[in-house]
């Protein structure tokens, strides 16, 4: 059967690219490793190699096409004994745009990290019976926003509000964030407050703690959470140990839990661990609204807050209220769905499945409430 060649993700953060040049034409035989096309991204031009051998049956995206989304079929390769007549069925197969767009995610290993596989279809915001949010006045205009944008907006708003707030971590500045959360912050706030660090998790976690002890409000972004000694022994315990004298207004944030294909050492879920540490507040948002309102609250909190995000949620879109200064209180759960017969409790990305389950149960006549713990 003919195989499609898809627009590849050539970097962990690439969402689309330009098809600069075809180096083969229809009818050419190719073998694995042959360079078949050149693709341009915002960062570089890269070559695309064939993975299998065969014959180029059809070129679907012409040379010079701009803004080709990752995973869009760009050509069809015919196997042994196949001819162009077989193409019809392959080309008619669902193209990438009908499925939820694969979300290219940056991972801790940069380019070696493949783009996330297709997000589950049901991961989109729940379709029915959302509960009214008591924190959002009725009639508020809602703006469709990704979790990624919401996190960035929260940081930007707080950085505008106070000069003491700054963000540091690996790749947060020039690269615009390993997960593109800090996109645009360097431009607006400059290198003084958007600080790229060496690969020094323990060092910059401790450094953030020291800066917080000295009165600043650091946001420490991790590519992968580590540095337990500083989070627990230094940040969480010092207020108590200093007799209430020395506080640590710091936010440690970054992706937490499993994402796609990041394997054991990048899939750790720290929620339960950190929740056991006196002196730490643990926030795990699900929606973009929660992400924004709670991150703003975390930055203003006089205590250390661990803000656990989820890589798969970064690209998901939710309605976020368009309000001047939207801050949610830390310490309160949210009813995500009204229901009268049973309650499902979850948090973070688990909410995706809780809402799906409620939907499925509704089909069976069980009316479930769904609660998002949030923190």
């Amino acid at each position, binding site marked *: 059967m003919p195989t499609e060649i898809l627009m590849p993700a050539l970097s962990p953060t690439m969402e689309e690219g330009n098809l600069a040049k075809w180096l083969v034409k229809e009818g050419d035989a190719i073998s694995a490793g042959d360079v078949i096309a050149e693709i341009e991204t915002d960062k570089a031009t890269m070559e695309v190699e064939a993975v299998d051998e065969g014959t180029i049956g059809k070129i679907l995206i012409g040379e010079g096409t701009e803004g080709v989304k990752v995973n869009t079929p760009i050509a069809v390769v015919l196997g042994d004994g196949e001819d162009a007549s077989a193409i019809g069925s392959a080309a008619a197969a669902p193209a990438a745009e009908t499925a939820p767009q694969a979300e290219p995610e940056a991972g801790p290993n940069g380019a070696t990290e493949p783009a996330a596989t297709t997000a589950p279809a049901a991961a989109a915001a729940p379709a029915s019976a959302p509960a009214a949010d008591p924190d959002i006045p009725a009639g508020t205009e809602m703006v469709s926003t990704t979790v990624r944008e919401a996190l960035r907006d929260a940081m930007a708003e707080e950085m505008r509000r106070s000069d003491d707030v700054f963000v540091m971590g690996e790749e947060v500045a020039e690269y615009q964030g390993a997960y593109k959360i800090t996109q645009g912050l360097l431009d607006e706030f400059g290198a003084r407050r958007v600080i790229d660090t060496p690969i020094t998790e323990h060092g910059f976690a401790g450094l953030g703690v020291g800066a917080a*002890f000295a009165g600043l409000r650091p946001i420490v972004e991790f590519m992968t959470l580590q540095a337990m000694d500083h989070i627990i022994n230094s940040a969480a315990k010092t207020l108590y140990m*200093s007799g209430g*004298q020395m506080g640590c207004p710091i936010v440690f944030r970054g992706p937490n839990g499993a994402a796609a294909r990041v394997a054991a050492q990048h899939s750790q879920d720290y929620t339960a661990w950190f929740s056991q540490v006196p002196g730490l507040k643990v926030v795990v948002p699900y929606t973009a609204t929660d992400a924004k309102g709670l991150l703003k609250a975390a930055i203003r909190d006089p205590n250390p807050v661990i803000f656990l995000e989820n890589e798969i949620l970064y690209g998901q879109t939710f309605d976020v209220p368009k309000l001047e200064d939207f801050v949610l209180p830390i310490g309160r759960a949210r009813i995500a769905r009204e229901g009268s017969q049973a309650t499902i409790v979850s948090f973070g990305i688990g909410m995706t499945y809780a809402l799906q389950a409620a939907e499925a149960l509704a089909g069976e006549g069980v009316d479930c409430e769904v609660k998002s713990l949030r923190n």
Partner: protein
Amino acid sequence: MDRTVPGAAKTGRTHAILRFLRPDGTAIGGLPGFASDRKEMAALYRLMVLTRSFDEQAIALQRTGRLGTYASSLGQEAVAVGAAAAMRPDDILLPTFREHGAQIARGVTLTELFLFWGGDERGSDFAGPREDFPVNIPVASHIPHAVGAALAFKMRKERRAALCIFGDGATSKGDFYEALNVAGVWQVPCVFVISNNQWAISVPRAVQTRSDTLAIKGIAVGIQGVQVDGNDAVAVREVVGEALEKARHDHEPSLIEAVTYRLGDHTTVDDASRYRDDAEVGKHWKEEPIARLRAFLTAEHGWSKDEEEDLLTEIREQVEAAVEAYLATDAQEPAAMFDHLHASLPPALAGQRAELAGKDGGDG
């Protein structure tokens, strides 16, 4: 005592150790200006004697069950006192658990120190140097804190420096290298002082690192490292003072290795005689810092026997008064363990607190 240790790597470089006073207290050559100021030198000496007297009392209290585990600074007084004496009030100190002399010089009271070592966290609520950091117990984790605090000064454009003191053992930790690297590349006003007392509990310096000196560890990160005689209070004060100046004005960090010797045990739960030769310790007693400074004061500033006796009497009274105040401090109520955790106590904890206080806690 037999102990096979690898020799230091032969790098072929010679290193100079900065020293103004010989072990017998005579000056080698020209002295920094402050050394001719009798009042200032007497004050430096007083702080060192006070530190040692505090040390003796702390050990006595521990041995009689009235203090927790305690880390003596015997023999290292010149490092702590000399470094702190070079600071300005608005610089900040980040000490580890053997820098009593620095804390005392900065204005932490003896009673606060006794409280801290007695297990009462009110001892870390210094009335004096409010912005100094509390004693850091985990080894080396305060080194990145110092860089963070220095970064805060730089960002706020304040002419202040962070002074971080730690032991030779801490220089083997990742935190040390990570913090030093960042301080070098970001150029923050931070001065790192290694109080190299030659022993990390039972591990001698030569078994900790093959590095020629600890000061050269700054080279790889572009930070100037200098070795100073840590038993010469004049040299420590001068070198740290210069480094602080450079930090405040040029945001240039420094690494200072103050070579001294731990004349006592690691802590009160240690017995160094099990792993360390008495002969080695005896040799180092000849270089100890207080006798050295006293000899200098006597020869250069006419420090008299009467002055010495008056000083010892005054210090004895001060330490005794602090011990009395410490012992007379009531232990905190058990319910105090709920303090400083929550701005307003959640119902579950409020119930537990009330129960501890002997009231009906309800079901919380």
